[in-house]
C-alpha cells in the first residue's frame, strides 16, 4: 500500500486527488475570509528563509503562518497564527492607522481590528498578547472553484456559474477529449480537466480524458505551462503555443480526436472552419491558388470521427454571436442554442427593526409593528397631557419642541435591551439579500452540435444489420384510443401479476433483454 500512495502523491494533481492531508511542494489554498483566498505552494525548508527563523512564512493581515506549520495536516484545518521571529526584517505592510509596532515578537499586532469606532489606540500594550493568539486562517485543498477565485489574472476568466453550465452542456465527462482556446488564465482549463479526468494516461490501455488547450500569447503560454506542471496536470492538459485562427488544432499533425470544444476567443468564426469533419469549403475556395500543394495533403479533422462534437463559444458581444451562429450554420452545425447565464449570490441577514433593540449600526430604530408604534404614540400623548395640564394656555410652540425632544429620548427599558441582546443571532427577521453589485453580463454562450459523419456505406451497413421487413408492435405516439387501451391492458396485467416480486422480475427481464441485445 505505502509505495503506491507515494508514487501517486508524486504524480497526482492536488486538484484531482488532494489526499487527506496537506503535502509539501503542493498547492494549497489559504482561506483568509469569505472569497478571500491565497494560493500557496507549501515549501519544506530546513532553516532560515528570507529572514524568518521558521523558514518560509506567509504573512496575512490575520497573522503570520510558517509553511512548516501547514504541512502534513488535515485539509480544512483551522490554523492559528504563529509568533514568528522576523529578525531584522521590518514589516512589509503599511498600516492605515500608522501602526509602527515594528519587528514585534509576533508580527500580528496591526491585525487587531482597526475598528474606527474603538477609540483605544492599537498600541495599547494591554491588548498585545490578546492579538497574538487571535489570528487564524483555514487551509483548503485546491478545487477549480477556489482556484478561479484566487488565480493570478492574466485575462478575463470564465467563472463558475458559466463554466459549470458549459461543461454540462458540452458533455465534458470522464474520458472526454476537450479542445479549449485560448487558455488565457487557465480558469476554464482547470474546471475542464476535472470534468474529463478518468486517470492519467499510460496507466493502462483505457481511453483517457484529456484537455487540449491553445494560447498564442507567448507570456500567457509560458505561465500557463508552468502552472500545468506545478499543479500535476501534465499529461492531462496539453498546451500548445499557437494562433488557432491560422494554425488550427492538430498537435504534431495529429488529431486530438475531440468531442467537446470551448472557444473563448475574440473571433470564434475564424477558428470554426478548422473544426470540421472534412476540409471546409471556404478553405478551398478562398485560398484556392495558394493552397494547391496543401490540397494534396489529406486533411485531418481534430474531431473524433466516431462521436458527435459539442461546442460552446463564449462572446461578450451580440455581433460576435451573430457572426458565429452564421458560420456554424454554414459549417453544418445543428441544435444551435444561444443564451446567457444570469447568476446571483445571496446572503442572509437578520433584519432588526424595533424601538427596544439595543443600539447597533445594523439596527433600524423604528417601530417594528403598528402596536409598537401605537405604544410609543400613546406614551407621547400621555406626556403631552401631563405637560399641558399645569401650563394651560402657555406658548404652544415651546411645547411642541419639548415633545420632539421627548420623542427622541424615549428609550427602551434597560432590561428589555439586555434580554434581546443576549442572543443577537436570533434577533430580528431572517431575510436574504443580493450582493451590492451584480455581474449582470459575462458573455453570450452559443452551443451547437456537429453530428458525426454518416456515409452511404455506413448507412448500407446499418441497414444490413437491421433490415426492415415485418414491423412489430408500435411504440411512440399512439392516438388516444390506442393509448387508453394499452394502459388498460397494462393495469390488468399488473393486477394479474399481483405480487411485487413478479413486477420486479418483469423489470429485471426487461433489463436482461436490453443487455442481451446491446452486447
Amino acid at each position: 500500500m505505502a509505495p503506491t500512495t507515494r508514487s501517486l502523491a508524486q504524480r497526482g494533481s492536488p486538484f484531482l486527488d488532494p489526499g487527506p492531508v496537506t503535502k509539501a511542494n503542493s498547492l494549497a489554498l489559504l482561506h483568509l475570509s469569505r472569497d478571500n483566498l491565497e494560493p500557496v505552494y507549501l515549501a519544506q525548508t530546513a532553516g532560515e528563509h528570507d529572514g524568518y527563523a521558521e523558514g518560509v512564512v506567509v504573512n496575512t493581515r490575520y497573522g503570520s503562518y510558517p509553511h512548516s506549520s501547514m504541512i502534513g495536516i488535515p485539509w480544512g484545518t483551522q490554523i492559528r497564527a504563529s509568533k514568528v521571529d522576523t529578525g531584522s526584517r521590518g514589516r512589509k505592510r503599511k498600516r492605515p492607522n500608522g501602526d509602527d509596532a515594528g519587528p514585534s515578537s509576533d508580527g500580528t499586532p496591526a491585525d487587531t481590528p482597526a475598528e474606527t469606532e474603538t477609540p483605544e489606540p492599537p498600541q495599547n500594550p494591554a491588548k498585545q498578547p490578546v492579538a497574538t493568539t487571535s489570528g487564524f486562517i483555514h487551509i483548503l485543498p485546491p478545487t477549480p472553484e477556489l482556484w478561479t477565485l484566487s488565480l493570478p489574472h492574466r485575462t478575463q476568466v470564465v467563472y463558475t456559474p458559466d463554466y459549470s453550465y458549459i461543461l454540462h452542456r458540452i458533455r465534458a465527462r470522464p474520458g472526454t477529449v476537450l479542445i479549449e482556446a485560448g487558455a488565457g488564465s487557465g480558469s476554464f482549463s482547470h474546471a475542464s480537466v476535472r470534468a474529463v479526468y478518468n486517470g492519467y494516461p499510460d496507466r493502462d490501455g483505457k481511453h483517457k480524458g484529456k484537455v487540449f488547450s491553445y494560447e498564442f500569447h507567448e507570456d500567457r503560454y509560458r505561465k500557463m505551462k508552468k502552472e500545468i506542471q506545478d499543479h500535476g496536470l501534465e499529461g492531462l492538459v496539453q498546451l500548445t503555443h499557437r494562433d488557432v485562427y491560422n494554425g488550427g488544432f492538430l498537435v504534431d499533425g495529429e488529431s486530438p480526436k475531440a468531442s467537446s470544444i470551448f472557444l473563448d476567443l475574440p473571433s470564434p468564426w475564424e477558428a470554426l472552419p478548422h473544426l470540421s469533419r472534412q476540409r471546409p469549403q471556404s478553405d478551398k475556395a478562398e485560398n484556392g491558388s495558394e493552397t494547391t500543394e496543401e490540397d494534396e495533403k489529406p486533411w485531418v479533422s481534430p474531431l473524433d470521427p466516431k462521436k458527435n462534437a459539442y461546442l460552446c463559444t463564449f462572446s461578450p458581444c451580440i455581433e460576435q454571436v451573430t457572426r458565429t451562429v452564421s458560420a456554424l450554420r454554414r459549417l453544418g452545425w445543428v441544435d444551435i442554442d444561444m443564451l446567457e447565464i444570469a447568476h446571483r449570490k445571496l446572503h442572509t441577514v437578520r433584519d432588526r427593526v424595533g424601538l427596544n433593540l439595543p443600539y447597533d449600526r445594523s439596527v433600524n430604530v423604528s417601530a417594528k409593528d403598528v402596536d409598537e408604534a401605537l405604544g410609543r404614540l400613546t406614551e407621547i400623548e400621555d406626556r403631552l397631557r401631563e405637560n399641558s395640564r399645569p401650563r394651560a394656555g402657555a406658548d404652544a410652540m415651546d411645547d411642541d419642541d419639548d415633545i420632539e425632544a421627548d420623542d427622541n429620548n424615549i428609550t427602551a427599558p434597560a432590561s428589555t435591551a439586555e434580554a434581546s441582546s443576549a442572543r443577537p443571532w436570533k434577533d430580528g427577521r431572517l431575510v436574504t439579500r443580493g450582493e451590492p453589485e451584480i455581474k449582470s453580463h459575462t458573455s453570450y454562450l452559443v452551443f451547437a452540435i456537429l453530428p458525426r459523419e454518416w456515409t452511404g456505406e455506413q448507412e448500407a451497413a446499418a441497414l444490413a444489420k437491421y433490415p426492415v421487413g415485418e414491423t412489430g408492435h408500435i411504440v411512440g405516439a399512439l392516438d388516444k384510443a390506442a393509448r387508453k387501451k394499452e394502459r388498460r391492458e397494462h393495469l390488468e396485467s399488473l393486477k394479474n401479476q399481483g405480487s411485487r416480486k413478479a413486477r420486479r422480475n418483469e423489470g429485471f427481464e426487461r433489463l436482461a433483454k436490453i443487455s442481451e441485445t446491446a452486447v
Partner: protein
Amino acid sequence: MDSVIKPGAWVVLQLPSGINRVIQVSPNTTISLGKYGSFPANLILERPYNLTFEILDRKEGEKFSRLRVVPTAELYAEIFADEASPECAAPTPNAGVATPAEPASAESTGQATAGKDVTETELKLLDENARQTLTQDEIEELKKNVTNAGKSVIDKLMSSHTAIDQKTSFSLAKYKLLKTKKYIRRFKVLPVDVPNFLEWQLSERDPSKILDIRAEMLGLVGCWANVHYGGDAVYLEDPGARCDAGGEAYAPLKPELFKGRWLVVDDTCGALTAAMAERMGLLYPEEEEDEDEEGEEDRDDQEKEETDQSAQQNTEPPAKTSKPPRGPRPSDFAIPYSQTNTITVVHAASQPNLSFLKYWGFDITAPNHPPHPLLNHLLNLTWLQLVQPERDLAYSLPPLTTSAETLMSWKPSRRGNFHRKRRRSARIRHIVDATRAGNFSGLVCASTMDPVSILKYTLPLLAGGATVAIYSPSIEPLAELADCFSVPRRTAWTSGSVPETAGKTAEELERWPGTPDFPLNPTLLLGTSLQTSRARRSQVLPGRTHPLMTERGGAEGYVFTAFRAKPAEGHVEAMGKWKKKKTEGSNSSVAAAAAAQDAAPVGADKDIPVEDATDPLPADEEMTDAPAPLAE
C-alpha cells in the same frame, strides 16, 4: 455515451412541433410519431444521434415509410436566403417592426424550448388574419396523399393563402413556420443523457418530480461539490468466509483505501444521482471500443446464484461471469463495492427512490442485474441504518450460518436462499460501517427534508476540506441553514458564550447534537454561500435576434455551498479573554461580535465596513486590471 442509437436505448424523439417524446428503441418495432407518420425502428438503429430525419412517402408495394437524412443546407435554406436578402444584411429600423415572437426556427434544439415563443393570442391572430382558401376537408385530402414529407401541403397552403401578399416577410416566415410545425414530417433523435433528460422532464413531464432542478443548478451543485472521477476501482479482499463463519469473518473495513466518495440525499427520483454518476464516469456502460476491458469493472454478482441453475430463471447476464480480479468464486462475504469513486445514497424510506436511473439501464431493485458501472459504485442505506444501526434488523442480526454438511443436504433453492441472505448481511454491514466511518469527500443534496437536520447527522461524516452543496427549489430552507453559520452565531460559539460547549472535546463538538439556539456547530463549515443562476435564451436569426418571450417559471432553485472545516482546539480561550475585557462596556455582545468578527476570519464577511476600508479584496483589484476580452 454512445454516439449512435443502440438497440434498447432510451431516446428523445423531437418532433417538428417542438414536442419531445422519450421512448425505448427496440429492433423490429414500429415507431409512431402520431400525425407525423410512423417508421420502422430498425431505420434509426446504429444511426447517429442529432441527425434530422424525414419520413419519406411509402414506396410502391412497401408497407412502411423509409427515412431520409435532411442535409443541414436544406434545414437552413431559408435562413441563408434571409441572410442574403438586403433587408437582413443591413437591418433598418423598419426591419425590426414585425418581429414580435419569432419562434426559434426549425433548428430549435432539445435544449431550446422550441415553439414556446408563439403565444396563444398570436396564434389566434394569425388564424384570423389568415384567409386560407383551402377548406379543412381539402387540407385533409391533401394530407392523405401527402408527398414530399409534408412540404407539398405547406407549399399548397402558402400559395392558397389570399392574404399572403399583404404579409410582411417576417409574418410570412412565421406563418410558414407554424404550418411547417404542423405538417412537416421531420424529427430528430437525441440521446437520453442527463442534460436531455432534464430538459424533457422539466418541460414536458413533471418538474416537481425532480424538484424543478435545472441544468444550471445541477452544474453548480456538481462543481461546488467537486464531484469528479474519484479514482480507479479498489476492492476489499474476499475474506473467503466458509458457510459456518459468522460476523467475525466479515471483511474488515479499510478506511485508508477510501477515496472520492460522495454522500447523497436525493429526492429527485435519481436525477441528482444520475448527474453525479455522469460526472464520475459511472452512468454509461463503457463504449464498444473498450468492451473487452469492461468485464473487469462491471462485475455483477448481486444476488447471483452460484451453486445451481435450477432454482434460478435463465436470465443471467449473457456471457459474463465477470468477477473481481481475485478468486474464482467470491465467498458470501466478498464485498462487491469499490472503496473509491462511490455514491452513497441515504434515504428516508426503506428503499431508495432512484427510478429515473432506468433510463440508463440501472434498476436498483432488480436481482441479477446485468453489468452496469453503478452496481459496484452505488451504495445505499436508510437514515436509521446510518444513525441508529443497532435498531435496524438487517444490520444487527448476525449472518446465517450452517455446517457444510447441512448445506449440502439442502435443496438447491434453500441453499440459494441461504447464500443470498448471507451476502445481504455482509453487504449491509459493509455499507453501514463504511458510511459511519465517514471521511467523505463531499455531501450533495436535493431533498425535501430540512437541510439543517441532514447536516446534523452528516457533518461529522465529512473529511476536512470536504465540499457541501445543497440544492433547494426555494430559498427559505437554505436561508435558515445559512443562518446557523451566521457571524453572530460563530462569534458566540468561539468566544465561549455557549454554555453547552463547555468542557466538550473537539470530537464531541463535531458530533454536536444541536440545541434550539445552535442547531449545528457553526464552526464546522467554512465559506458558506447561497446562490442562484438562470439561463436566459435568445433566438438568433438574421435581423431577428432577441431573447425569448417566455421562459419556464415555477421554482427558482437555489444552491448552498460550503467546505468542511476542522476547528482548531484551544483558541476559545484567546477570544474569551478579549471578550471579558470588552464586556465592561454597555453593548457587550455586539462589541464582542464586531471585534471577534475581524479577528476571526471565519466570520469576516465582505459587508463589514472595517474590512473593506483596510484591505480591498485582491480579487476585485485583479478584476479591474484584467484586460477586457474585447480589447484583445
